[in-house]
């Protein structure tokens, strides 16, 4: 975690992969009970922990911090889609037959959110996420400076998180 906050991309990526497993475990049961696609919530939590990573205090347990952020986002997600909580029986039935592996890692909310970004941001986020290019490569391909790519990527991610917030509360 400490290395990740110093700007070590490799350490950070490894950390995110590790934390994703933990987040999935925390989210799966709760999301399923509410009939929500767990992976959507997982991605929402990941985005939040990324944007709020400066709030982890050095030397304190990462797990507790992660749990606090995850809980906040899970509650948000459940509340936002609260109307679906009313049909638990059907969803439970459905989920009985869903193949766990098939749906692993694929989600839709973020895809929808991507369409709300401006073109540049979408291009950069896609290039970095799909093809895993470094900021440098993306910069060359899109004829932008490396700094501009970084800034656009960061703004794009923040905008993604904001689209989740923008959905009006049902209650």
């Amino acid at each position, binding site marked *: 975690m400490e290395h*990740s*906050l*110093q*700007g070590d*991309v490799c350490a*950070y*990526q490894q950390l*995110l*992969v590790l934390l*994703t497993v933990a987040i999935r475990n925390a989210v799966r049961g709760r999301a399923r009970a509410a009939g929500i696609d767990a*992976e959507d919530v*997982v*991605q929402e939590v*990941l*985005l*939040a922990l*990324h*944007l*709020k*990573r*400066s*709030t982890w*205090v*050095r030397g*304190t347990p990462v797990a*507790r*911090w992660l*749990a*606090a*952020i995850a809980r*906040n986002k899970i509650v948000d997600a459940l509340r936002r889609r609260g109307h679906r909580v009313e049909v638990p029986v059907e969803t439970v039935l459905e989920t009985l037959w869903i193949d766990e592996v098939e749906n692993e*890692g*694929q*989600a839709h909310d*973020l*895809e929808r959110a*991507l369409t709300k970004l401006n073109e540049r941001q979408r291009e950069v*986020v896609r290039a*970095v*996420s*799909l093809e*895993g290019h*470094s*900021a440098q490569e993306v910069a060359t391909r899109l004829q932008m400076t490396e700094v501009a790519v*970084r800034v656009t*990527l*960061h703004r794009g*991610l923040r905008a993604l*998180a904001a689209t989740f*917030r923008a959905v009006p509360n049902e209650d």
Partner: protein
Amino acid sequence: MKTEELIRALAADGSQPVRPIGHTLWRALATGALLSTALFLLLLHPRLDIGRAISTVRFDFKLLVVACLAVASAIFLGYVALPASSARQRWLLYLAPVLLAGGVVIELATTPAASWSERLIGHNAVHCLSLIPLLALPSLACLFFALRRAAPLRPPLAGATAGLMSGGVGGVLYALTCPDDSPLFVATWYTIAIGMVATGSAFGGGRWLRW
């Protein structure tokens, strides 16, 4: 979008070192207090008899109470801004109200009842109610700006705390120019003024500090 794709994008965005939120908050506190002071110097001035006032118990007590509030809520803010930290030293927040209550009791005990209403109403209640929020604004703006990077689990509470802190700063500054030193005046008008700031920023917190 696949989660592994998202992770790639997030990792790529993590190539710069992150400044711990504590630094951001301290900076905002300092900048805000400075800006509020600048506004004070621009609009107002310390009361002319400040040299004499500073040696009176009432004037010092008034400053002590509002300064206490500002410091306590600044410390508390460091906890409510973070998702995983339990507030210690919570009792500090009660210090200013308890001090003030004590001051009021002593004032009532030592002054004749006939002078109470005059002490309570003072000269400048309207000034107090308008200038404290005004002087608090720069500090409040800086704090909100910093808090948007934080992750408060209860945004309205974080907002209210920022309001108390800024109200405290506004109170300290206003106290320097305000000619009314009686704890009766402070307990009434300062409390209302700072309470307005805190209430407003609690709503602001709910609105702008969600994440």
